[in-house]
Structure formats: structure tokens, C-alpha cells
């Protein structure tokens, strides 16, 4: 008997291909696990059981006939609920979208389906991806499978928790300032945000268009690479998707890390960093050093500007992106309104949660006439400076390694009372979005309370191969990524 739920996506894909297990069996067992665990974890908003079961049977036939050959054919994937799925409710974890059911698929969904991957359900998240703890969801917070009094992280909290709790094999998340990597770190799974433009954003409900990027959340780096192989590539429906030839990311994992030059930013290990986190990440860097990488200290002097720059750009774009939720076309409409302006007011007052409202107000303010130059324009200038600074570092170094987050998963409720602390948890991840760089989070141990710690590996634009290769090499040396949360879920 296979321990299906502890297998990686690639292992499952291979077993399905060999006929050792079938896609419908995997899907069936997955839904049983969800039924058992998700009452506690709350990682899913919508389950796609019926359609997924039918789809698994269909896919299985095509695998048997040799029509489908992708390494992940027949494997179920769960999808963050801000990625549009045709005929399947897509809510962004917001009340305002109501039961919105898109009449189209996001490009990534089209690509997964073409490869025979089965869509299992839609995952919980912070409302409109705004939050770092998954507590802003209209559908309730996601619990951390390692300790259910802790948050999952966010905004792709459902993705990270579901993969960690073995109620998803792998998942798609989205990352605007760390929304894949930070929850992956809190939940002890592997999450990857590719270079901006690697994966089509068509069908991803925008939070901050210039920063958003879809990426995989999975058990290990190999699964991430396999998913990336399927979802990457130019899309004529997204003008910001890059028209380049992508390497086979999975095939390029095995290369050497020997001789790779790795920079450890001094500023990331200064005040504010949890001791256990510092120690685990330094130990991880040491492991790569012993595998032949050259590790040096570097400087990121702009780190203090990262969070303000990120929040100005992200909120400005969000204030515009979220204007379309006006009660006219889809989603909910305010209950009692008198005239057009009141229709907008009631709909948006009732439909959006506090965090979303806060960011819309902030974004509206920084774009308003008289303030634009002082805030938004300045933030774009800082963004350009940060980009140049990274370019300079990557002239000498192949990779940057730092903690994914300054701390491990906080208690539920703790962050909402101290939002500034929550915003600061994005400090190490947001830089990859600001500069459009690829960033990977891999588990690198546990703190004194047994909560997972994540190491972040950042590379130069389009240098995904090196980032994934270093992460893969690290996972060959360690087994943190194989450790499942123990004990009963409470």
C-alpha cells in the first residue's frame, strides 16, 4: 500500500504512469483527507470533488492510451482562490465577489489542464491577497498544521497549509510581496516566486499588477520545477509575460552548486531577527558552503525602504485594480442604496474587509493630485534604485540567501493588533517583487517551539535555474522538507 498522501507530485505522477495507482484513486484519497482535516485547517474555500473525480477518470484514460505524458498527468493540484477557474467559484476570499463564477480560465489553469493535472479545489487566502497571516479572509483564518494556535502565514496561507497538512499534493499560489514564500516558510513547505513575466497573469485577479506573480507551493524543489515547466511561457493575453525560451527547469536541477557565489546580506541578520531563525538560516548557508559554494557577506543598504516602497506601489495599484468591484456587474450589491454614489458606497462598505479598505484608502491617497509626486513617483524611483543595486550585487554573486521571514508563525490574532509588525514580516520577501527577481523558500529547520523556519534564495532576473538548483542541492543534503507535522490536529 502506498503512502499516497506523503508522496510528492512527481512520485505520484510516476506511480500513476506506471499503473501502480490510478488518478481517480489519488483524487479519492485526497478528498477523504480534506474531509478529515480541513474542518480544522480551513485551507479550502471551494471543493471541486465531483468535477475532479470525473476529470481524473478522463485523464486516466488518456494516460493509459499514451495521449497524456506530462510527469504530473493525473496528479491533483489545489489553486489559490484569486486564480480564475471556469465554472468554479472564484472569491479572492472576499465577500464582495459573492458567488462569482468566471466564464473563463486563467492561462495557468488552461496549461495545467492541458498537461492532465486535476484541479481539486480553491484555496483560502487573505482577502484579495492583502495580508501576511491569512486572517483577513472573509472565509476565516487558515490554521498552521504544525500548531493550530498559529497562523499559516499569507496571503497564500491555504496553499501552504494544505500542502503541509497533506490535504493537497501541490498548489498554485500568487506572490506580490512574499505571499508564496512567507506562508511556505511558516508551514514548512517549498514555495517559489518566479521572475516577473515568467508565468502569465491572465486570469489572476490583480492585487498589484506590477508585482503579482503566480508560482508553485509544493513539498520540494523538484515538484516546484515540474509545475513551473507546465505553467511558464509567453502568453499573448498578457503583455507583461516575457517572450523567451524557457529551459527545462526540472532537468536542470541536478547541476553543481560547487563554485556558486552566494551573498549573505548583513542587514538581514541585524536587530529584529528571531535568534532561532538567524541560527537556522546561517546553518543552511553553511551546508551549501560545505557543498562547495562560496559564501560571503554582502550589503542591502536599502532594506529600510523596502516595506514603504512596497506598500506605496502595491496599494496604489490595488486602489485602481479593485475599483471594478462596484456592485454593477458581478459579485454582491449593497442592500439599501439611494442613487448611484450610494450604490458604490454601500456595496464597497459591505463587501470589503478592513484590511482591503485600509489599503484602498492608502493607495487612493498616494495617487491623489498633490501627493502623487511625493509618494507614488518617489516609490517608483526607489524601485529603480533597488533594481540597480541588485544588478550590482548579481554582477559578483550568483545568489542571495536570507531568512524568508524575520520570525516563525505568530499566534492567531497577534498580528492584527499590531499591523506594522505584520507589514514588516514582508521585509525580506518584498525585495524580490520590487526588483522582479526569482525567490525560493525552502524549509531549513525548526525553532525552539517546533515551528518551521524558511530560508530564502534569491537570484538574478531569469536565473531561476540557479535558484532552483541551490534549493534542490540543499534538499539533497537535508530532510526538513520531508518532515510532516506530527500528532493529531486540534
Amino acid at each position, binding site marked *: 500500500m502506498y503512502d499516497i498522501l506523503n508522496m510528492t507530485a512527481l512520485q505520484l505522477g510516476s506511480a500513476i504512469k506506471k499503473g501502480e495507482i490510478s488518478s481517480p484513486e489519488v483524487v479519492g484519497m485526497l478528498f477523504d483527507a480534506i474531509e478529515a482535516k480541513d474542518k480544522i485547517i480551513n485551507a479550502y474555500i471551494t471543493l471541486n470533488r465531483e468535477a475532479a473525480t470525473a476529470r481524473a477518470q478522463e485523464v486516466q484514460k488518456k494516460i493509459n492510451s499514451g495521449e497524456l505524458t506530462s510527469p504530473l498527468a493525473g496528479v491533483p493540484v489545489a489553486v489559490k482562490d*484569486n*486564480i*480564475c477557474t471556469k465554472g468554479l467559484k*472564484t472569491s*479572492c476570499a472576499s465577500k464582495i*465577489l459573492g458567488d*462569482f463564477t*468566471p*466564464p*473563463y480560465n*486563467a492561462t495557468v489553469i488552461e496549461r495545467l489542464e492541458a498537461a492532465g493535472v486535476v484541479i481539486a479545489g480553491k484555496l483560502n487566502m487573505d482577502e484579495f491577497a492583502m495580508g501576511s497571516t491569512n486572517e483577513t479572509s472573509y472565509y476565516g483564518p487558515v490554521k498552521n498544521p504544525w500548531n493550530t494556535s498559529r497562523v499559516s502565514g499569507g496571503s497564500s496561507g491555504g496553499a501552504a497549509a494544505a500542502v503541509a497538512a497533506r490535504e493537497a499534493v501541490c498548489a498554485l499560489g500568487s506572490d506580490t510581496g512574499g505571499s508564496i514564500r512567507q506562508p511556505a516558510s511558516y508551514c514548512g513547505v517549498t514555495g517559489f516566486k518566479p521572475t516577473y513575466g515568467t508565468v502569465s*497573469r*491572465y*486570469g*489572476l*485577479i*490583480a492585487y*498589484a*499588477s*506590477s508585482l503579482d506573480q503566480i508560482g508553485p507551493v509544493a513539498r520540494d524543489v523538484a515538484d516546484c520545477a515540474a509545475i513551473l515547466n507546465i505553467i511558464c511561457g509567453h502568453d*499573448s*493575453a*498578457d*503583455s*507583461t509575460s516575457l517572450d523567451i525560451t524557457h529551459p527545462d527547469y526540472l532537468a536542470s536541477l541536478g547541476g553543481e552548486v560547487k563554485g556558486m557565489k552566494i551573498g549573505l546580506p548583513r542587514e538581514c541578520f541585524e536587530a529584529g531577527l528571531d535568534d532561532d531563525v538567524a541560527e537556522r538560516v546561517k546553518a543552511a548557508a553553511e551546508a551549501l558552503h560545505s557543498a562547495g559554494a562560496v559564501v560571503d557577506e554582502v550589503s542591502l543598504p536599502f532594506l529600510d525602504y523596502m516595506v514603504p516602497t512596497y506598500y506605496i506601489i502595491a496599494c*496604489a*495599484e490595488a*486602489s*485602481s485594480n479593485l*475599483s*471594478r*468591484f*462596484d456592485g*454593477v*456587474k*458581478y459579485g454582491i450589491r449593497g442592500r439599501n442604496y439611494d442613487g*448611484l454614489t450610494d450604490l*458604490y458606497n454601500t456595496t464597497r462598505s459591505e463587501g470589503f474587509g478592513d484590511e482591503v479598505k485600509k489599503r484602498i484608502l492608502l493607495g*487612493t491617497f498616494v*495617487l*491623489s*493630485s498633490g501627493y*502623487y509626486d511625493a509618494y*507614488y513617483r518617489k516609490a*517608483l524611483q526607489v524601485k529603480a534604485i533597488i533594481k540597480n543595486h541588485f544588478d550590482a550585487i548579481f554582477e559578483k554573486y550568483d545568489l542571495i540567501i536570507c531568512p524568508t521571514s524575520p520570525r516563525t508563525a505568530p499566534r492567531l490574532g497577534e498580528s492584527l493588533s499590531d499591523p506594522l509588525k505584520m507589514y514588516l514580516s514582508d521585509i525580506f520577501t518584498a525585495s524580490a517583487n520590487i526588483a522582479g527577481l526569482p525567490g525560493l523558500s525552502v524549509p531549513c529547520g525548526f525553532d525552539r517551539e517546533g515551528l518551521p523556519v524558511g530560508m530564502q534564495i534569491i537570484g538574478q532576473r531569469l536565473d531561476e535555474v540557479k535558484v532552483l538548483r541551490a534549493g534542490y542541492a540543499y534538499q539533497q543534503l537535508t530532510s526538513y522538507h520531508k518532515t510532516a507535522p506530527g500528532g493529531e490536529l486540534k
Partner: protein
Amino acid sequence: MKWETIIGLEVHVELATKSKIFCGCSTEFGGAPNTHCCPVCSGMPGTLPVLNKKVLEYALMAGIALGCRINRYNKFDRKNYFYPDLPKAYQISQLYLPFAVDGRVEYTTRSGEKKVVRIREIHMEEDAGKLIHSSYGDYSYPDFNRCGVPLIEIVSEPDMRSAEEAVGYLMWLKSTFEYLGISDVKMEQGSMRADINLSVRPAGSDKLGVRTEMKNLNSFKSIKRAIIDESQRQIELLEAGGTVIQETRKWDDNKGKSFSMRTKENAQDYRYFPEPDIPPVLIDDEWLKSLARSLPELAHEKRERYIRDYGLTEYDAALLTEKKQLAELFERTVALCNDPKETAIWMLGDMMYLMNRDSVAAEELNIDPYQFADFVKAVRNGIINRTVAKSVFEKIFASHDFNVEKYIEDNNLKQIDDAGRIREAALQVITENPKTVEQYKSGKTKVFAFFIGQTMKKLHGKANPALVNEIVTELLNNSD
């Protein structure tokens, strides 16, 4: 006191591309509500815009024709505002870097004066949809068919001084875009519309007064009326000791008056910022050069050529080039018959008369240039006389499938040049009308026309008129 009116125009022109600016939907006018839209142009969550390259091409053609400097680095910006006909709640436009700047338009007003209007900028943007208001109850229904139809907005400097100058400028634009084939420029369908910025100042002053803006006017007539009315309103206000406030006004064509919509204090803050979904578009020199080379000859260029090469009067040349279709018919016919003057005579005379009588627009003209050219040759070579020609031309006007030669042949319409036959007919008329001959001889020479007419009638109108004249004169003067 004498006052001077200062006018600047912002003109919106819909580009006639087959598909919309950011998606593949049809731009066709009309259609049942919400049948020409898709998830992108109806603002569904997660959808993204992709620039239609044809829109850029058409826009650049306009920029070149208006003598603008073209920005090689192009960006789009978002203009944010809430309205149900704008499904994304922002319009994708160009604020910071319009694609074309610093142009110049030179034209002649109706009263024959030469005029120059400087162009500040031209930018690309998308059109919004419209609301259909229910005639029962309190409902409005959005129709997104027009959402994403490509527009260019042409912003002039405040260089016009009268309604006539403004209309002249607009007519120049209309004809130019028609010749370029980049817009239908149908004002009644809203594919060309203007916002009027207007202020007045004491004549001789070089300081600009406070201006008002009137939005979305879509006929030459209402533009003219609105300008006259608004400048009058401002002058009366100032002469009575009042002040003009900077505001947006709405022109009501039925009432013939404008009304205040919102003042500067209540002006909307559109929170413009660079559109993150569309990367900057670079225009390469080669493309721009090849577009400039491929630009067709424009109305004013044709007009000059007709005067210079064909010897037409300025007035005739202007009439023939006012509409692209007229100029095309003229040039194709002349190329076949090599007789510009005779062709122009028929187009400006009988054809204009028939178009007017039957309400046929230039776009609906159905005249075959081959038949028209045969006709011109037949007239020039005296194969048919002018009386017969008028009826033949009416046939050419009415049907594309008309063969001039065959028609003349079948109906035996050829001119009678046989002096013997004409003399015979004229003699008959003289014999049959002895009393009239008496009158003529007693000095009532007016009756001469009667003999000409009757002789023509006997020959079914086909006789060579010069010959008839000669023979009748001779017979009347020589008979006793």
C-alpha cells in the same frame, strides 16, 4: 468694448480598426447591447489588456498627417473614475507621454482666409460604453459594446478666434481622417466629437481670460451655436461686471443653451498613474518612415494639384476634394478620359443636383468611372449633344451596370450632323407656321427660339445645336 473669443478644441476621433484597442471584439457600430464584448472589455476580474498594433498604426498616421513629432517611447496611463459605463472603473489613456506632440494644421476658412492651428498633443485611449435608461421605472442598463473602441484625442492650442475658424479646423480634420481611411468620422454616430474650451478677452489684450469647457458636441451646427452662445454669455457677464468661473458646462442643443455641470473646485481627481499591465511600446524609425511614405495624398494636397495641373478654380477644386469618394471618382474618370474640365462640369453640375434631389451621400455614389469616362468622351466628341447628355447622365447616376455606348446605339441617340435632314425639318417648321414667320420678319426676333425648339423636337432633340442654329437663321433670313 470690443471682445476677442479664444477657442481651443479637444477632438475625440474613433479609429476604424476592425477590432477593439485591447481585445479582439468587433468595433462595429450598433448591434444588440452587450454582443460586441468579452471578459476583457467588460472588465471581468483577472483579465488583461493587449494593445492592438493596428490602433497604433492608425494613430501614428494621424500624428504624421497633423505634422506632429512622434514619441518613440510610448506609455499608457490609467485614468480612474467610477461610472457604470466604465466597467474597469478606469480608462486606459495616455497622460504623461502622448504619442504625438507639437503639430500644425493649415486650412482655409469658408470665407477664404488662411488659418494655422497648432496641435499640442494627440493621445490614444479607449472609449467607454453607454447607459440605456429605462423609460419605465428607475433603471439603467449598461451596454459595453463601445467599451474599448479605440480613440485618439487631438488637443489644439487656443488658436481659434471664431465659430467659423473652429468649424473650418474640424472640417479639415474630418476630411483628413477620411482620406487617411482611419476613421468613419461620422459625427452623428459619435465617431468624431469635440470639447470646446472657450474664453474671451478685450480685443488687443494678450492675457487669456478664464475659460469654460463644453463637452461632447457632435455636429458642426451645435458646435457653431455653442461657441456663439458661450462667447456671448461670457461677454455679457463681464460687461455686467461679473466674472467667468472655470467650469465644465453641458450644451443642450434643444434649448440652445449651456448649463453648468461642475466647477473647478469640484473637479474630479482622476489619480492618473502608469498602466502596469501594458509595458512601454517602442516605435522604430523604419516603421515610422514606411508609414510616412505610405500616407495617401490628403484633401488639401489634392486641391492644390487640381488647381495647378488641371486648371480648376479654387472653389471647384475644394468641392471635388471635400469628400474622398468624390475625389476618387474624379481622378479615376479623368485618368480614363483625360478631360478634367468636362468631368468637373458634370460632377459639380448635374451630379451634385441629382445627389441633392435624391438625397444620395458621397459614400453612396454608384457611378462607374468607365461609363462616366465614355460619357465624357461622347459629349466632348459631339456624339451626343448636351440635351441628350443630361438624360444619359441621369442613367449613369442611377445604375452602376449601365453601358453608355450601347445605350446611345440602342436608343439611336447619336447627334444628327446631317445638314440635309436638319434643313428638311427646319423647312417643315417654317411651312407649318406662316404666322410666326410673319412675326419674325416684322422684327419680333424673340420667336427665333421657337423655330430652334420646334426643329429640335422634330429631330427628337438629337440634332447638332450649332448646325440647327445656323440652318434656321439662314432659312428665316432668306425666305420671302
